[in-house]
C-alpha cells in the first residue's frame, strides 16, 4: 500500500518534470525560430557596416559578404585559424579585399583584426574587431579609445619599406603606447604578415572569380 503511493508520487513528480521540460524546450524553440532571422540580419548588418567602414559601399557592386574565400596558412599568417577574405569587385574587376585575420601575440590573448587592402596593395584601413588588451594601456588599438589604428590607412609594403613595419621602439615608423609596446607590436606584425601573404598569393586572393560570382 505504502509502496504503491510512493511509486505513484514518483510517477507524478516525473510527469510534472517532463511537462516542464517540454514547456521550457517549447519556449526556447519558439523564441529561437522567431528571432533567428533578426539575429542573422543584425549580424549581417553589423558585418556589412564594419566592412563598409573600410571600403565605401560605392566602390563595389557585388555582394561582398557572399563573395568570400577562406585561407589557412599557420606559418605565413601566424595563426592556425582560417582567415576569411571578402572580395570587393566593380563590374567584375577586383577592387579591394577585406580579411579577418588574427594577431596571436597580443598582451592578453589574440587580437582579431579586419584589414582592407585595395588592389594596388595600399591599405584601405584596419580595424580591431575584438581584443582583451588592458583597459587604459593596450586598448588604444581600439578606434573607440584612440585614432592610432588609422595610422595604417594608405600604407603599403613599399610605404614604409619593410624595415619600417615595426613600432618606433623597434626602429620602425609606427607609434607604440606609453606603457604598452606588446599590443601595437603584435598588430603591426599581423598586418605586415598579411600584406606579405597577399603579395605572395595575389593571384589567388584577387582572382577574378567570375564563375563564383554567378553562383553567389
Amino acid at each position, binding site marked *: 500500500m505504502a509502496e504503491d503511493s510512493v511509486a505513484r508520487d514518483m510517477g507524478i513528480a516525473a510527469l510534472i518534470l517532463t511537462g*516542464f521540460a517540454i514547456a521550457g524546450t517549447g519556449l526556447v524553440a519558439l523564441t529561437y525560430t522567431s528571432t533567428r532571422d533578426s*539575429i542573422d540580419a543584425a549580424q549581417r548588418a553589423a558585418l556589412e557596416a564594419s566592412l563598409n567602414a573600410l571600403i565605401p559601399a560605392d566602390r563595389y557592386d557585388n555582394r561582398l559578404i557572399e563573395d568570400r574565400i577562406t585561407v589557412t596558412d599557420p606559418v605565413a599568417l601566424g595563426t592556425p585559424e582560417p582567415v576569411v577574405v571578402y572580395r570587393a569587385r566593380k563590374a567584375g574587376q577586383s577592387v579591394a579585399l577585406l580579411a579577418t585575420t588574427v594577431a596571436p601575440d597580443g598582451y592578453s590573448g589574440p587580437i582579431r583584426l579586419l584589414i582592407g587592402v585595395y588592389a594596388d596593395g595600399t591599405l584601405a584601413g584596419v580595424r580591431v574587431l575584438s581584443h582583451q588588451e*588592458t*583597459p*587604459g594601456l593596450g586598448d588604444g588599438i581600439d578606434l573607440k579609445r584612440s585614432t592610432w589604428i588609422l595610422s595604417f590607412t594608405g600604407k603599403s609594403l613599399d610605404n614604409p619599406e619593410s624595415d619600417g613595419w615595426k613600432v618606433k621602439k623597434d626602429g620602425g615608423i609606427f607609434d607604440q603606447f606609453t606603457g604598452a609596446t606588446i599590443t601595437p607590436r603584435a598588430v603591426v606584425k599581423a598586418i605586415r604578415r598579411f600584406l606579405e601573404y597577399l603579395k605572395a598569393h595575389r593571384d589567388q586572393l584577387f582572382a577574378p572569380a567570375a564563375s563564383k560570382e554567378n553562383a553567389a
Partner: protein
Amino acid sequence: MSDISFARILKDGLWTNNTGLVALLGLCPLLATSNSVVNGLGLGLATTLVLLTSNVAVSLIRKLVRPEVRIPVFVMVIAALVTAVELAMHAFLLELYDILGIFIPLIVTNCCVIGRAEAFAFKNGVLRSAVDGFATGLGFTLALVALGALREALGQGTLFSQAELLFGEVGRAMTLQLIDNYRGFLLAVLPPGAFIGLGLLIALKNLFDARAQRRAARKSVALREISA
C-alpha cells in the same frame, strides 16, 4: 504570510534586502559588468526581466508543482526564460549583447533568481511575486548602475558613454564628459576597482542605515520622556 504589503516588498527589494548590497548574491556579474553605467544598466534590465518573468511563472505553477521536484522545475523555468531573453537581446541589441557576452547566459546562475523563486514566489500570489521580482531586479540594477557610475566617472571621467548601444542614436547625446582630457584611473576600471567600489557602496548604505536607526532611537526616547 500573504498579507505582506506591496510597500514592504518594494522597500525590501530596493533597500533593506538589496541583492547586490545586502544579500551579496550575483556578485560575479555585478563585479564584472559594472565598469560603466550603460553596461551595468543593460545587465540590470536583463536580470530584472528574468526575475519578473520567473517569479510570475513560479508563482503561477506553485500549486501544480510538488515540493520535492520544485528545484529542478525552477531551474528549467529560469533556464528557458534566460535563453529566451538572450536570444531576444542577440536579435535586437546586438552590440550590447557582444559586450555583455557571457554574462547574459550567466543570469541563469545568478542565485538571486532562484533565491526569489524559492523564498518568495513559491509561497505568494502572482501579483505580489511580480512586484517582488520587479523590486529585486530594480534593486540589483540600482546597485549595478551606482557601481558602474562610480567606476566610469573615476576610471574614464565620463558617464553614460556608449549609451547609443542601449537607447539607439538618441543615446549618443547622453554621454557626459565630466572632466576634459581626463587621463583615466586604471584601478577603477580593472576588477580590483569593482571590489573596492562595492565595498564603498556597502559602507555608504550601512552609514545611512545606522544614521536612520540612531534618529529613530532618539525619537522613541524623546517620545517616552514626553509621555512620562
